[in-house]
């Protein structure tokens, strides 16, 4: 092989590498080097609020614990896209398995294929390493609320064990503020969280206190949570109030809620 030949083949190889490099260059799994869409929740919340403004009834598909089951996540997206009665999708946490940056981007890209808007909550796995920073950059704040129709959805970070007292988890101030925040715009409330009271990552010293705080929210219908990896409708505190637990996505079943503006609701388990 001559030097000329060699130089030419190196040049070809280098240009091929450069073309592929955008996808192939990785600095570190936990680098929080975000490419593409960011601040998903804020943008989708305004889409949801706009689209549901005058609706009497809201249909919400709830999933969670997608971890690294990307095939199943794709099947779910296809199943929702085939329907036209769902208003939005809630992912109730554990977007990632290891908390490394690319996991958030993969899940985001799959969920971005949904025709309807979606919001995501932070799960305990999403707090690992730099996961919290990646969640913040891609999805946004870990406590947030929005209104669809006349129903307010209060989304909470309940992964207390991951924060080791460095931040108030769950944030009671945030819950209380949403008793009155935008008071004229909603009549009833739904709570959404990753871990529910009594779960291993929840701060169980305040499990009952948390429940009482939640009940202060105007006409709280129910709570939706993940973390347990199986569908479970639990009357946790023995007062008839239900925490609806979603399955992990590999079970290939989602919860479909119908919330009415008058404070009544129903749900079904939909296999896909």
């Amino acid at each position: 092989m001559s030097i000329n030949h060699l130089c030419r083949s190196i040049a070809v190889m280098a240009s091929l590498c450069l073309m592929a490099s955008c996808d192939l260059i990785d600095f570190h799994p936990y680098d929080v080097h975000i490419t593409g869409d960011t601040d998903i929740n804020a943008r989708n919340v305004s889409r949801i609020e706009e689209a549901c403004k005058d609706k009497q009834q809201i249909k919400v598909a709830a999933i969670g614990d997608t971890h690294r089951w990307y095939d199943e996540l794709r099947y779910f997206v296809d199943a929702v896209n085939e329907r036209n009665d769902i208003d939005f999708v809630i992912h109730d946490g554990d977007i990632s398995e290891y908390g490394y940056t690319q996991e958030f981007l993969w899940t985001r890209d799959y969920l971005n294929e949904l025709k309807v808007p979606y919001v995501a909550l932070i799960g305990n796995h999403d707090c690992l390493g730099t996961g919290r920073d990646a969640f913040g950059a891609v999805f946004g704040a870990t406590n947030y609320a929005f209104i669809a129709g006349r129903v307010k959805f209060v989304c909470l970070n309940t992964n207390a064990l991951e924060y080791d007292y460095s931040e108030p988890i769950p944030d009671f101030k945030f819950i209380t503020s949403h008793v009155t925040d935008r008071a004229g715009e909603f009549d009833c409330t739904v709570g959404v969280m990753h871990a529910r009271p009594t779960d291993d990552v929840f701060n169980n010293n305040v499990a009952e206190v948390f429940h009482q705080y939640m009940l202060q929210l105007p006409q709280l219908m129910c709570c939706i949570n993940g973390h347990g990896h199986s569908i479970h409708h639990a009357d946790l505190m023995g007062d008839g109030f239900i925490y609806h637990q979603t399955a992990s996505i590999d079970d290939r079943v989602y919860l479909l809620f119908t919330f009415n503006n008058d404070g009544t609701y129903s749900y079904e388990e939909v296999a896909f």
Partner: protein
Amino acid sequence: MRKWLFSVLWLLGIVLSAVPASATEIDLDTIPSDSLRRLRRYEQRMKRMEERWHKLIPSYGKWQFAGNMGLISLGTGWSYGKNKQWETDFFVGFLPKFKSDAAKVTLTLKQNFMPWKWHLNEKFFIEPLACGLYINTVLHNDFWVRQPDRYPKGYYWFSTRIRTNIYLGQRITLKIPQHKRFFAKSITAFYEISTCDYYILSHIGNSGYPLHELISLSFGVKLQFFD
């Protein structure tokens, strides 16, 4: 930390003094004087010792871009084996802040194996295959080797701090002619296709998963100072 370093050096000393030296032995009976004999022995011993210590001096410097060990990594290491087909590198990497709370420093220990050398001409040779394994760690408080005590036993089975990577790559080396040498005797350019344990784990069981998400591309340069 310092105590640990001392014990490592001490152990290294023991290992080195046990290695047989390559210097040829002189027939001491031909030397008449006792003191001269003692001096010769002393000199030989010192020579052997120096040779052993010399082996500890890193023989090259490396620079690597990307490859899941930081944006840029600077390293050094030792080449050894009959045809210098083995290399052990130690890198310090820099990972920018991006959207996280702080920039980070990473450390990497890398083992390389290049089974063949193809000499193109007087100046160039190619190593058609370089392969190996590297272990990377991040120096930052949010990462752990084993899960902290606050978690229930066996909650997270994996380590967020230690990443194991494997790679395949190729190299080309320019031998610098003796009269033109200033800093190094040869300069090598290389590229590597690597993957890390996380990428493999995320890939398992997902059929619709593109290959470019599994592999990473990195580049680097090596300056050979000594053999």
